[in-house]
């Protein structure tokens, strides 16, 4: 069964390299077919991970005490499934979005390479392997951002590169401080058990949190995100916002719950400062999104805010908060991908990029705007759509944490204010798209093609379906939470 792990890495790696070899040989169609096949295969393998049991795989020994290992545990399964599923859907979407594009081979090549690194991140079993994949992901995602080769794209991509590398080095600094003590590198549910709450560990943890938080758009290292995400082609923005930010989250989960141990951080200044940073980000992100006039940038700011919901859940260090956080990872991925794909469809068909240009778009692109509307309402947190549940668990987690009342009630209050702003910056777009004065804004019908509609509809259906019924998922995540935190 170890084949599954190998296949999840090898298929996208090889196919990605092959697509890049096809460059300039007018084999676009072949390249598309290869990409689609490999996405379908990896998705199939990612589903199979759920039937495979816990696996480990030793690849090679970098130095004597730095192994390069993969493993499959409950947490990896969820992330692997999420990554591969979204990759497949967005792949279908991008066929239409990029149909006029001259450099599709390059795009799809790096697209698959990114999937390779993502699968590696999800399945790394020790901190060094994780770091290697994390860094390589930064690099292979760079061409996706710069793809359009405009001035803004170059600027955004370099900003992304600078911040990501800086963040990774801050994190690496923290990791060095930790491994100085000659400790095991493997992740272990509940922590490796050699760390205490000494100052050295805490400082190192804080560095790692801020460092990996960069990818997740955590204040104060968030500034690249709203610049870099919107300049990429829509499929790339979608996966950047929906998925790649989540690798930062995964890194933080691995560090807190699988390496340091949540108990060691409980009640320390690290927990408080991390939590305050997440709350600042939640509020600031939605406030900036509310003010923003450019459609995709608004969505990017929304990502800043929403990913910090997840981080807030993690910072609570209790099972309810953890459950809420993982649920929000999944749900926000579905929602944000839908939103970006809708924005992309609008740009692809009408080249309108500002929010105020979207007036009357509901008549021109009904399917796209309905998907956008449902996803937007879901993100606000209205039952029975999915994000209601994740927010519910986050707030229950906040209320049951053993912290001071200011946090226990202040945290949920910030989340609620942010939810209101979310309603303000997303639902108003839908209202203006559908309800505009007669004659003035009646646009001719100009709906997206089959692939774009298909991708959006699939995700929207999932948004509704998971909102209505997700007890198995909640139980599954609850299990993880109890393994890593005991009966806390």
């Amino acid at each position, binding site marked *: 069964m170890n084949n599954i792990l190998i296949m999840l890495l090898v298929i996208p790696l090889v196919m990605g390299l092959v697509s890049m070899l096809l460059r300039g040989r007018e084999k676009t169609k072949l390249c598309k077919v290869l990409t689609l096949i490999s996405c379908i295969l990896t998705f199939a393998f990612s589903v199979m991970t759920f039937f495979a049991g816990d696996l480990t795989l030793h690849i090679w020994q970098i130095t004597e005490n730095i192994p390069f290992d993969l493993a499959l545990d409950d947490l990896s399964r969820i992330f692997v499934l999420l990554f591969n599923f979204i990759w497949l859907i967005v792949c279908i979407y991008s066929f239409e979005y990029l149909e006029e594009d001259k450099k599709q081979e390059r795009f799809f090549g790096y697209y698959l390479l990114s999937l390779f690194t993502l699968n590696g991140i999800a399945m790394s079993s020790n901190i060094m392997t994780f770091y290697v994949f994390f860094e390589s992901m930064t690099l292979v995602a760079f061409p996706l951002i710069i793809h359009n080769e405009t001035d803004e794209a170059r600027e955004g991509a370099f900003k992304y590169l600078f911040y990501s590398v800086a963040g990774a080095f801050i994190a690496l600094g923290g990791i060095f401080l930790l491994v100085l003590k000659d400790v095991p590198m493997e992740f272990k549910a509940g922590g490796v058990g050699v760390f205490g709450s000494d100052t050295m560990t805490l400082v190192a943890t804080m560095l790692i949190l801020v460092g990996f938080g960069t990818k997740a758009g955590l204040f104060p290292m968030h500034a690249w995100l709203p610049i870099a995400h919107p300049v990429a082609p829509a499929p790339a923005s979608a996966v950047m916002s929906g998925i790649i930010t989540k690798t930062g989250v995964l890194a933080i989960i691995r560090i807190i719950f699988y390496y340091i141990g949540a108990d060691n951080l409980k009640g320390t200044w690290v927990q408080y400062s991390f939590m305050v940073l997440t709350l600042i980000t939640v509020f600031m992100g939605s406030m900036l999104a509310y003010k923003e006039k450019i459609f995709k940038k608004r969505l990017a700011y929304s990502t800043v805010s929403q990913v910090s919901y997840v981080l807030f859940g993690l910072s609570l260090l209790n099972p309810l908060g953890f459950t809420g956080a993982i649920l929000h990872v999944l749900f926000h991925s579905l929602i944000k991908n839908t939103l970006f794909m809708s924005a992309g469809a609008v740009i692809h068909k009408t080249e309108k990029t500002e929010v105020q240009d979207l007036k009357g778009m509901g008549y021109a692109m009904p399917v796209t705007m309905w998907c956008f509307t449902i996803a937007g309402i879901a993100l606000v947190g209205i*039952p029975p759509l999915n994000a209601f549940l994740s927010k519910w668990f986050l707030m229950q987690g906040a209320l*049951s944490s053993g912290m001071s009342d200011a946090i226990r009630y202040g945290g949920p209050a910030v989340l*609620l204010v942010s939810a209101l702003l979310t309603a303000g910056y997303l639902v108003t777009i839908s209202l203006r798209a559908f309800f505009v004065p007669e004659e003035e804004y009646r646009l001719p019908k100009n709906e997206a093609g089959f692939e774009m509609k298909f991708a959006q509809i699939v995700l929207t259906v999932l948004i509704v379906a998971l909102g209505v019924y997700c007890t198995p998922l909640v139980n599954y995540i609850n299990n993880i939470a109890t393994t890593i935190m005991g009966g806390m």
Partner: protein
Amino acid sequence: MNILSICFPIIIPVVFGLLIPVFDFKKKLAREIYVMSVVCVTSVLAWINVINMTPETITLWSFAKPLIVALRIDGVSKVFIALISSLWPFATLYAFEYMRHEERVNSFFGFYTTTFGITMGIASSANLMTMYMFYELLTLVTIPLVMHEMNHRSIRAAIKYFTYSIGGAAFAFMGFIIITKYCGTNDFVYGGIITSEIMKEKAGYVYLAYILMFFGFGVKAAVFPFHGWLPSAGVAPTPVTALLHAVAVVKSGAFAIIRITYFIFGAQTLKGTVGEYIPLVFVIITIVFGSSMAVKEQHLKRRFAYSTISNLSYILFGVLMLSPAGLTAGLLHMVFHGVMKIAIFFCAGAIMHQTGYEYIYEINGFGFKMKKIFAVYSIASLAVVGIPPLPGFYSKLALAKAALENGDVLSYIGIAALLISALLTAVYLMSIMVRAYFRPFESDKSVKDPNAYMVIPQFMFCAMMIGFSIFGSYICQFMAEIVSNL
């Protein structure tokens, strides 16, 4: 009772309502027959439930523990369901005529009918989760109705309505999570689910949760200072203002407050605490404020909207007396005011429909030109003022009795507020009658009664009012029985 009979009144209007824009009826008659049959079938099923249903909880599905969607019809639900399902068919009939010259009629009736089902959902919810869900959905399906005209004014009004409602729901949500956290459940149980242990440890947070939820749900019930959306939303077509903004939507807010007050927190928990006093102060302010603003307002529908604001707080005042007598009085006023106010709004709608006039100073002498409409208006406004034996009298009497029984300072202030407000009500409603009957007709338009579509519903409401006044004491008794059987 089986699961289907409780679900049908919710599902039928939602599904068949949302199908209307899909069918996209081209013929007026086909659409009218379709809409009317959906509404009538729903009303009949709802009435069967009112008569037959025993209060049993039916669980539909579970999001995750303890978030469960479950339905139950008890006495309070029955009162609300009976009110809504009696008014809806007539309001629909009226809307057919009113919307004759409008555009996008299919989508209008689609959302109009869907709202019926959602309101039924609020009435039959068995726990806070279900009610909260339907409450949010109610906001979403009614926005297109407010926006129907699609000019800048109505869009601004709809966005205002949306902001207020979603903001209120967020407050309510905050209380909701606090309660679920401490109680581990959120089912509606008469007498409340807050145990004495929780009160010992967390009394402060329980009161906080109540105040948050009161004002959160109070947004839809237009409690001062969150009333601003209601007068603005008057830009909607009159069937919407009349049915939704005088009955269905605003009374859902009041109904939600009844639910949380008596079925989540329990009267005993709140009695004589800050959790009672703060809402009560705002309710009393709203009663006087609403009536005073109505006196000042010269726009017909906005004047009635302010009147609604004031009257909704009558209901809440009864609810906040935290006694069976108070709840009875609140429910009575909910039913009576529903019928009276929809009749008054429909009169305003008829005037606008026939002449296009919207302001009070434009209707001089109309009383003898639109005889039927103004006859209905006169009866309805005398009823709202509370002239015996018209129905408003019974409910106000019950309110005053409940307040006297309660007997603390705020209750006496409340009684004074009710009296002042009744006086102001007389001023703002009767002055329109005076203009219509005792000033010379001076318009250059031809003014006459509308056709049967509009008059029949009006006469039905009139008949209901007269029925209420004849059987007033029985109804009061009946309502008291319902409350004592909870």
